[in-house]
């Protein structure tokens, strides 16, 4: 199937955020795709608060099934979470479990005033009561497909679709 252009989606996502909240908030990207997006948003929207990054490996609910990811990245929240307005950024929103883990982790840094969620693609299939406030596009995808964000050496973002069985 023809996938939308990630760069176009990014622009529209950035615009939605800007028109809604301006730039008075903190951005936190979720590894790996969410961090790429958050870096671009941070620049594009000229956010003053330093960028936060989260690796939710330590908060996942499937640790007993799959163990620890081979490359865990350090989470870094270089601003005061207590009382902050935070936009959490991830590339693809699906079951909602990653976001649950990310929210839990954020609360271990402090009590934010608010958290909203921005995602490039919302592909439905939620297993938890979680919704994104800023969405690039909504896509219906079969359950056996895996949608991932890629970044080329020049920084250009694109979407790619895999068979789940192939990815495993």
């Amino acid at each position, binding site marked *: 199937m023809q996938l939308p252009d990630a760069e176009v989606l990014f622009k529209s996502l950035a615009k939605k955020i800007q028109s809604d909240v301006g730039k008075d908030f903190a951005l936190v990207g979720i590894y790996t795709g969410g961090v790429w997006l958050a870096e671009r948003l941070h620049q594009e929207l000229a956010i003053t608060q330093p960028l936060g990054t989260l*690796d939710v*490996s*330590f*908060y996942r609910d499937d*640790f*007993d*099934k*799959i*163990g*620890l990811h*081979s*490359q*865990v*990245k*350090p*989470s*870094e929240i270089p601003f005061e979470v207590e009382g902050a307005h935070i936009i959490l950024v991830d590339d693809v929103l699906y079951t909602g479990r990653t976001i649950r883990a990310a929210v*839990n*982790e954020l*609360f*271990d*840094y*402090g009590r934010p005033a608010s958290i909203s969620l921005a995602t490039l693609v919302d592909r439905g299939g939620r297993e938890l009561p979680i919704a994104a406030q800023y969405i690039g596009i909504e896509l219906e995808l079969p359950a056996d497909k895996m949608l991932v964000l890629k970044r080329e050496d020049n920084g250009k973002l694109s979407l790619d679709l895999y068979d789940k069985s192939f990815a495993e």
Partner: protein
Amino acid sequence: MINRNPQLDENGVLQHLLTTEGLPASILLHILDTAESFVGVTERDVKKIPLLRGKSIFNLFFEPSTRTRTTFEIAAKRLSADVINLNIAVSAQTKGEALLDTVNNLSAMNADMFIVRHAQSGAAHLIAKHVRPDIHVINAGDGSHAHPTQALLDMFTIRRYKEDFHNLRVAIIGDILHSRVARSQIHALTTLGVPEVRVIAPKTLLPKMVERLGVHVYHDMAKGLKDIDVLMMLRLQNERMKGANLPSPEEYFKYYGLTPEKLLLARRDAIVMHPGPMNRGVEIDSAVADGKQSVILPQVTFGIAVRMAVMSILAGNQV
């Protein structure tokens, strides 16, 4: 008969951490990399993560060591595991309560992990060999054999300060003969690609054929410390200070104790490490232990993160 490395399963996945010997560099580096993430966690206000929630970790200390036990306990608690401390008195052992009976009883209490400290070399191997297959064993020091988490936290510390292992000269100084720490350090250093590892000690404190482990042997601090980037001091046990191994702590300090003067023989940016607890004035001078080249306190901090990493990786590696 060729025996498979008892730490790895048939797919080469780490199931127990018993020694640094025979582990591929990829596994050692994975532990160090994971530990980097945990350093961040230990610096937060909330120092706890839910990774091992509901897991039961038993500290089985057949040899008392409050210090080591505490670091494992902190690490386990920061991972939200339940920690049960058992100091199994040596007297119970000699009375005939077999080591494996103790272990089997604890397994029946649905343990997920055993942290084992024992005065006999090979105790952790024995337990790992006979324990239920879903239980992971971490060796917290067995006799003079191995102390892998200490060696790993030392590697972590070296990487933090020296970045690359491939251009270092490292000296391990002191009682190599009786030291499980030294053995684990040597294997970790050589596996991670350190080109020159030296041991410096009087001949009474060196095991036979130690050079077969891939180290260069020195008996003289002046020669041994030349061009050294990392000094790893060892603790000299009280009972070895006098008698057939050494004449006196004073003479040992004079010839092998690390003083500011001797430290000048190493590279100017050399770091000084010690696994603790230190005998100040025996193997190390206070001016060095508290000096600006000392990384002894950071070692302790990193020790928690490294042990968190080892526990998380093992707990996640299902059989």
